[in-house]
């Protein structure tokens, strides 16, 4: 089994606490990662650059849903998030701006996907 890349992504996000790239962003998103019929939920709140991450199953104005493989590719910069959203591999309800701003934090391998 390949190592879990999901938790490290969120841990790294939580460690940032503040990122100036998100200073104009505000909102809460529930990120749902589907794996073998089970759904893992992460709650990400951004308030003018301040980032909070939890496993709370709370209400959010935006939900972002993907299977684990897709999510891990996106989180490691090996998948173009916008194209995946247009394909329906990532499903977003609510405010797409949240996803657009979040993907700015993802480091990308040189040359791109």
């Amino acid at each position, binding site marked *: 089994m390949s190592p879990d890349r999901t938790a490290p992504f969120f841990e790294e996000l939580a460690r940032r606490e503040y990122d100036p790239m998100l200073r104009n962003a505000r909102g809460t998103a529930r990120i749902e990662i589907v794996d073998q019929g089970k759904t893992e939920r992460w709650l990400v709140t951004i308030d003018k650059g301040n980032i909070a991450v939890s496993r709370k199953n709370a209400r959010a104005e935006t939900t972002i849903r993907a299977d684990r493989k897709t999510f891990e590719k996106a989180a490691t910069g090996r998948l*173009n998030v*916008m*194209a995946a959203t247009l394909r329906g591999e990532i499903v977003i309800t*609510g405010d797409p*701006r949240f996803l657009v701003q979040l993907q700015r934090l993802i480091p*990308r391998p040189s040359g791109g996907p």
Partner: protein
Amino acid sequence: MSDDGLIQILHGNTFVVSDTNGDIDASPTDATGLFTYDTRFLSKWVLTINGERMNALSVDDLQYFETRFFLVPGTGTVYIDAKLSVIRRRAVGHGFHEELTILNHEDEPVELTVRLDAASDFADLFEVKDALKKKGRYSTEVDRKKLVLSYDRQTFGRSTAITASEKAQIDEQGLTFEISVPGHGSWSTGIDVSIARLVIGQPLGPPETPEHAQRRMRRDLDHWLDAAPRLECDWDALKATYHRSLVDLAALRFSPPITGGRSLPAAGLPWFMALFGRDSILTSLQSLPFAPELAATTLRALGDWQGVGIDDFRDEDPGRIVHEMRYGELTAFEERPHSPYYGSADATPLYVVLLDEYERWTGDRAIVRELEIEARAALDWIDQYADLQHNGYVAYQRRNEDTGLENQCWKDSWDSISFRDGRLPGFPRATCELQGYAYDAKLRGARLARIAWKDEELATRLEREAAELKRRFNRDFWVEDGQYFALALDPHRAQVDSLTSNNGHLLWSGIVDKSKAKAVARQLLGPRLFSGWGVRTLAEGEGRYNPIGYHVGTVWPFDNSFIAWGLRRYGFKEEAAAIAAGILEAAEFFDGRLPEAFGGYERGETRYPVQYPTACSPQAWSTGTPLLLLRTMLGLEPQGEHLIVDPALPNTIGHLELLDIPGRWGRIDAFGRGRVDVRRTQARRR
């Protein structure tokens, strides 16, 4: 109506193109249908009564989002036996709503079979242009109340749902109404064609009713027109052109999913109802004195999409501003790079120019602080990623050799950049206007650094770099034996030496040495460039000159509006007025709607401007042209908290007032009287 006899209505990036009967019967390559988010959701929509198709009596373009077709059954060209008449009233929203009414003019009731054939090919806009084959699977779902057309390819799915308010028999190919219409009576039904599946931009909550949507759109258009400055003048045609521009600009507004409902100018109708960095920025600049909120939304949306990494497929670099964003199937499956695509070399410096110009007009310093990181990244891009010739100039060369853009400046056709003898230079190419934009961006960036970012060090550095760039540019690009600036430097740093309209953009940017400005102005108004209507993209006499060549001889209204601005900047008021007069007089021939481009023929030769055949009208920056020309003629220039008015109007205009100009001063009026003898200025060029 567009020029090809097709009827188009739209709202945001949803639009319907039909024939004059209201029918849609698209082949894979033609352009009719219901489109949204770059996908055709309906490619067939044909009305028959007792098996007969309709014949159009007239079409009422009510608003840009609604239209009414008056029809009679029968397709003959001779007199039609009009026992029945048919009215289709159609309004676009999230899909479209159609009210179909049939009037019986006889004493006796009639039994009728009313049929609407429906189908969808779910073509991507790019496929409609190129006739590509689909890779997914079609399906149709029928129940008593609804017809659902679908297309699926892996996780990608798009659906269209069709429902009627009156009883209908629904089958896989459409809807049938078996009806009886009483003598001198009528029958009608509402039909909704809605976008049932689309992964992005799906509105939350129940869709609004068609009546509500139409009321809202009408109210919105009224508000938009009320908020714009009022124009009073002796020249009625100019008033009509101004009104046309405002209405068209309203139609061109588009809300990408990330702007929270606020809108920015899309590039053009109908094929370019999308976010384009360059087009949205230039149109926002043109409309600043009239609708400044467009600039704010443009700056925020482009900031959100600013490049963060290196991606060769999308020609993306950190700090680079988007060229084009698309939502169709080919983009979704990465067969096209528009998710988004970054292949533009001018949008990034122009982003900083717009941010500064917006602050100068509105005093909105908060947005300058809000977008500080983005503006700094854009300034960094100029030095770190655009110097492809390693000589300190902005240049471009695509890394996506397959579907990327060859020419990443506004003259983006394949043959637009050429030497006098017609040869095409290699890559990377450093076109001259890019250096002007970079110079302007640095100086404006320095101002922003001082007033909002409190970074004196950056301001000083940018000013030093700008001065140095200007010095080198005036040396390296100046064509001594022609007395103008070369179009570009080729990869061997040789001058691409043809004479072009780009010289006008250089005046606008301020990069031109004072000592050279007069020669440049003389060229712009000279016989090789100035046609009598406007400045040609490429001068007569150059190897590739062609008066109806897309970027090699035609006159582009938007180009001329920036040239006029440039001439004013260097104090050539009369020359600027002569260009404004020529373009606005041309507008009269197009009922106030300037085309993207028209022929570069000498004015005296054709007497009227010959439109360049183009599929896109209105075009955003053509729509913005009369607005910017009003600004340049009145000499409107913000200075501190005030608006300077320094009119130099063509004497053909007479008296002109622009009332309630919005800005940091609140609202202000500007007046002028036509005193510039433009015929003399135009004639002096010989």
